[in-house]
C-alpha cells in the first residue's frame, strides 16, 4: 500500500485517497475551434510514463483537497507533492 504524504494532513494510507490520473492536462480554452484529433489528444491520449509521473490525488476520506504528486511508476516512490496553492 502506498503511503501518500497529503500536503495538508501528512502521510496517510492509500485507501483514504482517490487517484485522479495524469496531472497538468490543460482544458481547451476554445473548445469550439478544436479539431477531432485535438479532442482525441485532450480526452484520451496519455503519457503513461515508465518512471517519473506527475499525477493527481484527492484526499477523499480526509481533507478532501486535490493535490499533485510526483511518483515513480516503477519503484512507487513519491518524491514530491504540490498543494496547488
Amino acid at each position: 500500500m502506498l503511503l501518500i504524504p497529503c500536503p495538508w494532513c501528512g502521510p496517510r494510507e492509500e485507501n483514504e485517497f482517490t487517484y485522479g490520473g495524469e496531472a497538468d492536462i490543460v482544458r481547451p480554452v476554445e473548445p469550439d475551434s478544436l479539431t477531432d484529433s485535438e479532442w482525441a489528444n485532450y480526452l484520451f491520449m496519455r503519457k503513461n510514463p515508465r518512471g517519473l509521473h506527475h499525477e493527481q490525488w484527492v484526499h477523499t476520506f480526509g481533507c478532501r483537497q486535490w493535490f499533485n504528486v510526483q511518483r515513480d511508476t516503477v519503484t512507487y516512490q513519491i518524491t514530491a507533492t504540490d498543494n496547488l496553492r
Partner: protein
Amino acid sequence: MGKYSLFNLIRHGLSYHRDWSKTWRNPEPQPSYDVVLIGGGGHGLATAYYLAKEQGITNIAVLEKGWIGGGNTGRNTEIVRSNYLWDEAARIYEFSLNLWNDLSQQLNFNLMYSAKGVLSLGHTLQDMRDISRRVNANRLNGIDSELLNADQVKKMVPSINVSLDSRYPVLGASLQRRGGTARHDAVVWGFARAADALGVDVIQDCKVTGIKVQKGKVTGVDTTKGFIKSAKVGVITAGNSSVMAKMAGFRLPIESHPLQAWVSEPIKPVLDTVVMSNTVHAYISQTARGELLAGAGIDPYTGYAQRGSFSVVEGAVAAILGLFPIFSRVRLNRQWAGTVDTSPDACPIVGLTPIQGLYFNCGWGTGGYKATPGSGWVFAHTIANDKPHRLNQPFSLERFTTGHLIDEHGAAGVAH
C-alpha cells in the same frame, strides 16, 4: 522437434526420457527479418504462429525482453469466455473462443482448456438488469448465454452463500457454459513451440531499446542484442505499449495499471466452475492442481512494477469470503501482479499506426488472455496484408478520433 504423442512417450520412456529435444530452439537474432514482433507473450507468439501458418511468412523474430511465460500470460487467472455486449467485441471474442476448441490438437500441446462454465453474479437489481441485457445481446449474436436465478446458482455451486442476509446477496447470474479456463503457461509454451517448429526465431532476453523510423516508415529496431532490420514491426507489449509508442514518436490512449491475483494452498475439488462478480470485483476458480485461483480489479494508480497494494487483495478476498464462507480457513500460497494496458473503452487497439510498417496490438487491459488465439490470428492478417482483418477493423487507433468507441466496461469488468 519431436511430436508429443503416446507412441513417443513410450519410445522416450525406453531411454529414460533423456533424449527429448528442447521445446524450442533458443537462437541468437539474425541481422534482418521479414517481420519483427516485439513481445513474446501469448498474443505475440500467437501472431508469429498464425503469420507462419496462415500467412506463409516464416522469416520472423519474436523479441522477448525476459523469458517466455514471465509476463502477463503467466500472471492472469486463465479465464476464457466470449459473452461481450457489443457486436464488434462479441465477434472477436467469439472467434477466439472457437479457436480454443481444438487449439491443443493444432499446437500439439495440452492447453488443458476446460469448458467448465463461467458464472457472472448479480447482487443488485441494477446488476440483474445489466446481466439480462447482456445475456439477450449475446443470444442475438449467437453466443450461448443463460440467465440464472439464485436457486439455480446455488444448485450449480452448492458452496456459495446466496442468503439475502449476506454482505453481497446473490440475486442471480449469467452463465456461459462454453466459457472456462485454459492453462496459461501452456498457452505461451505451446505457441512458442509451434511457432519455432515453423521456423520462427523466438529470442529471449532481448530488450528493444529503440524503434528506427525513416521518412514515416519503420526500418528496424535497436535491441540489447544489436540492431535488427525489418520493414514490418509488430508491437504486442501489453503494459509497456506506451513506452514502445514513445520510441516511435506518438502517444496512445493507454494507462498501465497493476492487476493482482493469487492462489491458495491446494485443496480437494470443491469448485467446478468459474465464479465472477463485477460488483465486488473478484473472481475465483479452482485449478487442476486444486489451488483456489482468484483475482481482483486493477489497482487505481498507474504502475509498471508488477506489484500492487495489499488493500486491493484484502478487499477482493473479503468479498470472496462473503460469497464463500467455506473458504475462510484456506491459506493463500502466492500472490502476484501483472501490468495491464487499460484503454478508455475497455476494448483493444489492434491495427495500423501513424508509422508505415509499424503495427500495434495493445489495450486488451484486464481481459486479453481469453482472446490470445483470435488476437494473434487477426494481427497476423493485419501485418501480412498491411490492412486490418474485418474482425479488428473496429478496434483501430482512429476510433478515439472519430468517436466510434466500443464501451465494454460492463462485460470486460473483471475476470481475466
